[in-house]
């Protein structure tokens, strides 16, 4: 069982989108997946078509003492996932602190080995965006940690300020190919010696929010879209990368 975490450099860069689509794409390529939502926004489930009313999920289970894996669902296309869930009495913000989330994750990772999941299941974790001055949430706990950024000057500057980030591999999302600025920023990131940037970039595509409005991924709502191709490519890259990790270990 391999674990990948995705975390946004800031809010709204498309982390949750990337997790849902990466999961769906891997699933389509024949690799069983389990998606885990660790971000209090609880939005991952929307891409997987879960109705609003259902409040169950990881956190309600953990706090009420029931086994967390009983909060696992399967989407219409067969992707397994665990939503974050909604607590009946939501605690104050800092209760979902970095330390708490990490502790939960350790428990989950340990217990997941016991579960009856298909062999070779790939687990993908959606993390809340990086706070100011924070380190990557799960950097020492997963095989692959992707840092999602947008190719805009803000992200670029904040990335530069945080360098070096040895544990992270940077995934560029929402590239507007027609923008000279964004292409130049991408080139600069690719050329940077301290930052590892994925060779796969996800382009801006209006099919993404539209699919979300249908509570689907682009693979169902717009299979011919650029986003679908980009995410499929991303999945291939991730899978090949993991094979390399296996090879080394």
């Amino acid at each position, binding site marked *: 069982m391999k674990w990948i975490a995705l975390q946004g450099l800031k809010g709204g860069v498309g982390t949750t989108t990337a997790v849902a689509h990466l999961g769906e794409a891997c699933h389509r390529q*024949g690799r069983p997946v389990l998606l885990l939502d660790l971000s209090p926004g609880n939005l991952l489930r929307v891409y997987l078509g879960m109705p609003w009313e259902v409040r169950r999920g990881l956190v309600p289970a953990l706090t009420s003492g029931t086994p967390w894996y009983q909060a696992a669902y399967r989407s219409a296309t067969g992707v397994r996932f665990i939503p974050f869930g909604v607590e009946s009495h939501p605690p104050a913000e800092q209760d979902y602190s970095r330390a708490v989330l990490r502790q939960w994750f350790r428990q989950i990772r340990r217990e997941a080995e016991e579960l009856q999941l298909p062999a070779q299941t790939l687990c993908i974790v959606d993390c809340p965006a990086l706070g100011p001055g924070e380190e990557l949430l799960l950097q020492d706990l997963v095989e692959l940690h992707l840092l999602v950024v947008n190719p805009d000057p803000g992200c670029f500057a904040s990335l530069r300020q945080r360098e070096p980030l040895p544990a992270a591999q940077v995934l560029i999302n929402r590239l507007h190919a*027609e923008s000279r600025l964004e292409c130049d920023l991408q080139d600069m990131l690719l050329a940077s010696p301290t930052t590892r940037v994925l060779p796969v970039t996800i382009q801006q595509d209006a099919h993404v929010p539209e699919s979300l409005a249908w509570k689907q991924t682009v693979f169902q709502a717009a299979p011919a879209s650029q986003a679908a*191709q980009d995410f499929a490519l991303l999945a291939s890259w991730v899978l090949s990368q993991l094979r390399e990790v296996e090879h080394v270990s």
Partner: protein
Amino acid sequence: MSLETLRPWPAPLWWLLGQLFRLPVPWQQQAAMYRWWRTWFPHVDILHPRLLDVLRIPLQALWLLLVIPPQARKPWPKVGAWLRRLEQATLGVLVRIFSTENPGPVAKRLHRVMRNMVEHPLWDQRWFRWPMLLLGLAGAVLVVTVPYELETQLWMLLALLLAALLIRRIPGRMPTLVLMAISLLASTRYLWWRYTTTLNWDDSLDLVLGLILVAVETYAWLVLLLGYVQTAWPLQREPVPLPEDESLWPSVDVYIPTYNEPLHVLKPTVLAAQQMDWPTDKLNVYILDDGKREEIRRFAEEVGVQYLDRPDNRHAKAGNLNHALTKTRGEFIAIFDCDHIPTRSFLQTSMGWFFKDRKLALVQTPHHFFSPDPFERNLGTFGQVPNENELFYGLVQDGNDLWNATFFCGSCAVLRRGPLEEVGGIAVETVTEDAHTALKMHRLGYRSAYLSQPQAAGLATESLSAHVGQRIRWARGMTQIFRIDNPMLGKGLNPVQRLCYSNAMLHFLYGIPRLVFLTAPLAFLLLHAYFIHASAVAIVLYVVPHIFHANLTNSRIQGKYRHSFWAEVYETALAWYIARPTTVALIDPGKGSFNVTAKGGLVEKEHFDWTISRPYLVVLLLNLLGVAFGLWRLQAGDPREIPTVIITLLWTLYNLLILGAVLAVAAEARQVRVNHRVGLDVPVTLILPGQHRVQTRTVDVSEGGIGVELPEKNLLSPGQKLQITLFHGTRPHVFPVVVANVFGHRAGLRFDRLDVEQEEALIHCTFSRADAWLDRDRNRKADNPVESLGEIFSTGLRGYGALLRHVFPLLAEKLPVLERVRHLLWQMLPRHPEYNERMYP
């Protein structure tokens, strides 16, 4: 994994059945039933019934019941399998013995013994080497000259035939050499026989005709021999990497000579040349404009390249280049005709050898064409049958390279300035200045190299007459060199270089020989001259091995670059036109004038080029007359002559076939576009209104537009404006386009006013990509002599069809109707069942 590929079954019939009998038929069974149906009724699509199926189905059913018993699927399955197994076994043994790739233990020992023999020090002793060589030669002479009874000759024929057929299946170079040896023996023996026994010294007409034919056959034999020498061992040189330190890289001047070609032809070349991977301060691009056009000057200024013109236009292209040579001072000169677009990797690939070999003066790369030449266009063979050029660039130059005899072809090459200046710049004495310049450099002891990977591509000549004009120029020029600077004479060349150059020149003398071959059988059929004084059986027994082995061997050597028998078509089509200029040049090399090849024009209307084809029409009529006479001779002539008449008739029929193909060349097909579409398969993103992006692949590009595949049919509509993204490495480039047309899953997009920067980017993403021309012959089949003959046959038929259509326009009007009737009848005919596994719709 995915569920949506199982589409619902579109089955009106099953649906009907289901409706009638209220049967829910599961789709697997529907599929099985459907497959069964397609096997036995391959021409009736039950899912889309047509009116005439009412007739087709019973006809086919009758046919199946009465004519095709179910067991008769594969006749003689046992014997076939048995033969195949025998063949495989024999081959396996042979391959194991001869193969150099992974030899077995026996083969290894054999190779060792052979190597010991070949490398034995005795060979270095004169007293041993020369006698042994003479011994070998004596053996060959014996084989060639010993007279056999016809029966013995027959046995020899069969033995050689079988040997060649087996050897040809063994991969490697050694078997090729053996095939060459067999072929040479057979051909030489034939020629010997012709000289010694088949000339009738008693009859003057027979003798004169016989001597002409023998002379021509001797020429063919010589070209065959020299061709074998030239192509025995293609070097297949690999590029050499450049030194790490860029400061060592020399400066390169890029010359782009032009005379009257329009700007839109020149533009991509200049932009691509500018973008070649090379340090910018060491790369200078020059447009050498002999047209002295203001427009071109302005363009040069705009994109930042140098513009050179000169007061006069002496010596045409050669003079133009020489003038530039005095104005620039780069250490190396790269030359591109104005319509040869270089890839960005051109210099990186070709310059390395100059570092490795200080005496190297020239690196030549192929001329690759992305548009069909008139032959390919009119014959409809583009991308399927290798064109006329390919033999030369694919094989001959590569073969020359082994002997350090690669010559300069005027474009897509790099020259070292020093040697070039030493020979006085580009040669101006002949009209093929390129080859002559190389010859002069070789004479001074400089070397040349050939890289067979296409690193530039361009437009082929447009119209047939221009194409013919260009070939005339080559033929004339090469003959001129043969006269005024004969490679067999003079200083500085080694023997094989002399042979290679001579063959290149002799090759262009094929004009008269081809015409003789086309008309020779008529001498017998019309004039009743026995120009080959021998019995029909003897002729067959000697000619068959000669022709058979020559074709078999050439098919093996050249198959990738020239399909069997196509040389005949290409050469015959040009024979008449180059016969005169070469003969004139042979007598007086100074006569005649130079003509520039027109490019970028358009054949506006389908028509028949009567001027070009006139001589062939005359020959055609003569041949038809010959056939008539032949038939009459069969009827009324001496019965003892019948075998001879039949042989001559067969020869005439073959000639008629070739003539048909030549006529097909003359039927000029209409060209639709000014901008040539170049097949290109790369990812492209369509940016639709509201930032919707769809990724697909391109089909083709041209300077003015791009064709893309559509994942959904109604994605685009004509007139719609959008943007597309193409990639140059990881870097995306966006271009504004307008949808020009939509056909189903294809759309043609027109670029919407690109600025200079965008045009540069477009060239970058398309023509000048380093891998642009790598898979040029991707979907082409290998040579198969029998299939090739079939190709020529159908091409010939089309040629005659075109001729009839243009002679009788009335017929042409009726033709569609006739075609429809034929099609209808054809569709009605019962079919052989198709035992095919993949039969889902």
